[in-house]
């Protein structure tokens, strides 16, 4: 029998990475500055989290120039979307289980 927490995905259950996927799953794409503002992280910190998610195939990053300024757009992949859904479901199930255990 495996422990219920083994169903959690180490790549995305970290708070900021979960937040990144949550924002992206609601939108078509979001830019680096927007993510930084919403998640209240430093550029360096955000870059590290994005790199981890990109390496795992959960997001895609596109860099380009708009109005002579560089802009980085981030998009969630199908894999990232389903990983987020299953992570949230697993965490809710774990919390429900703890709640039942505490009541009984």
């Amino acid at each position, binding site marked *: 029998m495996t422990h219920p*927490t083994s169903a*959690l995905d180490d790549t995305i*259950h*970290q*708070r900021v990475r*979960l*937040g*990144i*996927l*949550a*924002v992206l*799953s*609601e*939108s*078509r*794409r*979001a*830019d680096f*500055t*927007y*993510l930084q*503002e*919403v*998640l209240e992280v430093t550029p360096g910190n955000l870059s590290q989290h994005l790199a981890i998610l990109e390496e795992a195939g959960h997001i895609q990053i596109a860099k380009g120039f*708009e109005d002579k300024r560089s802009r980085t757009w981030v998009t969630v992949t199908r894999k990232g979307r389903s990983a*987020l859904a299953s992570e*949230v479901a697993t*965490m*809710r199930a*774990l*919390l429900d289980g*703890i709640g039942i255990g505490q009541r009984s």
Partner: protein
Amino acid sequence: MNADEARESLAFSEYARKRARDDMSRPWLALVLLASLSVVSLSLTDAATSPTALFWVFAGPLGAGAIAIYAYRRNQSSGIESSPLAYVTITVGILILAYTAGKIGFAFQIPGVARFGPAFVAAAGYFALAWIERSWMVAAISFALLGVALAIVGFDLSSQQSKALVFGLYGITLLALGFSMRAGRKQLL
């Protein structure tokens, strides 16, 4: 991961999701409201040949188009983009259904349907949108429009009175929307 961390992570992801939804939802709203209220107003006239009706045939889509361009540019500058496809589909769907309801009412000489139908269709469309977007403001507009439609039929208002009532709601809605978009802009800046 302990229970407190899991709770905190879930709460944070819910906050991020809601924030993204709030930042994306405002620009398209004006597009849907302007377009469908224009058609509701238009359908209150019995033919699309009167000067007022002809004005709305052009002004409605032009206004909606201008707002669509504004919404697109605003989306780009805000840093988060939503797919416009669903909203364009909803707008076109409400337009066609509202216009058809009005035309059916006039074709079959059922004044109640002609006056009540388009507003009812638009109100139902807004209510569905309010549910999808979890927006209390859209839900309030939906109920207000339904109230206007019921008043038109219940008090047997004339075409002029009906139009005045719909235009009144139209004006109040756009004002509320303007304030809402301004508030949203302040949050983004």
